[in-house]
């Protein structure tokens, strides 16, 4: 489940420039807390970075 979701999150992030995790969870039809957990793991691995434009977004590190 976790590996599946991780793959879905990475795939989703690959298709968008940046996103709120709320929007990502809605689009993936997943629980936001589960998506957040994956994003935090990816951030700690240096694969995801955060940006701030009025509020915080996440995006894949290029």
């Amino acid at each position, binding site marked *: 489940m976790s590996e599946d979701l991780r793959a879905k999150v990475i795939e989703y992030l690959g298709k968008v420039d940046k996103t709120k995790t709320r929007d990502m969870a809605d689009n993936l039809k997943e629980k*936001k807390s589960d998506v957040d957990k994956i994003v935090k793991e990816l951030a700690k*691995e240096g694969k995801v970075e955060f940006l701030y434009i009025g509020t915080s977004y996440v995006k894949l590190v290029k």
Partner: protein
Amino acid sequence: MSEDKKTPLLDELEKGPWPSFVTDMKKLAEKKPAVKDVLDQLELSYAEKKGHWKHGGIVGVTGYGGGVIGRYSDKPEEFPNVAEFHTMRINQPSGWFYTTDALRDILKTWDKFGSGLTNMHGATGDIILLGTTTQNLQPAFNEFSEKGWDLGGSGSDLRSPSCCVGPARCENACIDTLDICYNLTQEFQDELHRPMWPYKFKIKVSGCANDCVASVARADFSIVGTWRDTLNIDQAEVRAYANNGYDIKGMVVEKCPSNALEWDGKTLSIKSEECVRCMHCINKMPKALSVGQEKGATILIGGKATILKSAFLSWVLVPFMKMEPPYDEVKDLLRKIWEWWDENGKMRERVGELIYRKGMRVFLRDIGLDPVPQMVAAPRANPYFFWWPEEINK
């Protein structure tokens, strides 16, 4: 080149008997070209009545989404040394207790990687380090980290919890504010460093209702020390105040907001059930009056400055909670609140604004708290009790 620019408007701020940030910055500018450009850009802003800083974007250190605030000049050709001038927030120690060695250590690293400019402290409490380049962020963070410092919060995350000096210096402290602040900071590292919420969330801890960190006005979640038994009264000290000519009736009894005190000229008595633990009488007669024995905290929710809605003062959420390590009760409550806010909040909507939009009774039902009279700010004018729709269908 910017070195030749004059700053007549800023120079005005050096006149008069007061210390001037312009003087300090000019001194620093002798060895830091970025500071010279800050002064010149500020002079331009004063002349044009227009700011020239851009804010945001991608800046950070590996694994962190908070603690670094992107700052760029919108005139990089004119002021090349502040083309990038990012802010770093360093999480302050509980109660802002430092040794001078620790402060020097911070400034040594900041002098190496940044402009040397600081702001002690930001509104949330962090040590604010003003002005570094994108390239220097990671090495600066690495060095701070090696010295035992960490970044604070920024963006849509938990901001660095802060607290008053508490039991370290204050006899009124009903809770160990320093330990609570440190414990919550350690517990919620993910929430502090990786922004995932609709907007910011601030926790402030005050040892008593004097609320020296102004948590009620500034924090989404306020922990304010209180007691639930009765005020301690030392009658001999009360009489000493009276014998010294102190107007106990006028200065204390008549100013009690809930008329809980009585003074017959010899004895000061209190109706504990009327006392709202506001601290006024204790502040006025600290040698005679002191906080009670059964101590804990009142938890309040929803304070903030103007954002989507106007400024809010916090509401009472839990009238009394014991505050003992490991503080599981308050942590569980925080997690429930965050889950509800995260699920229902709009972008840039603080938790107080969400409660205002959806209603306190919806909030209380969803986080599993029963309404109690202490949550009510004023008696209701509407006599109707509103049932939940599902209760009517039964």
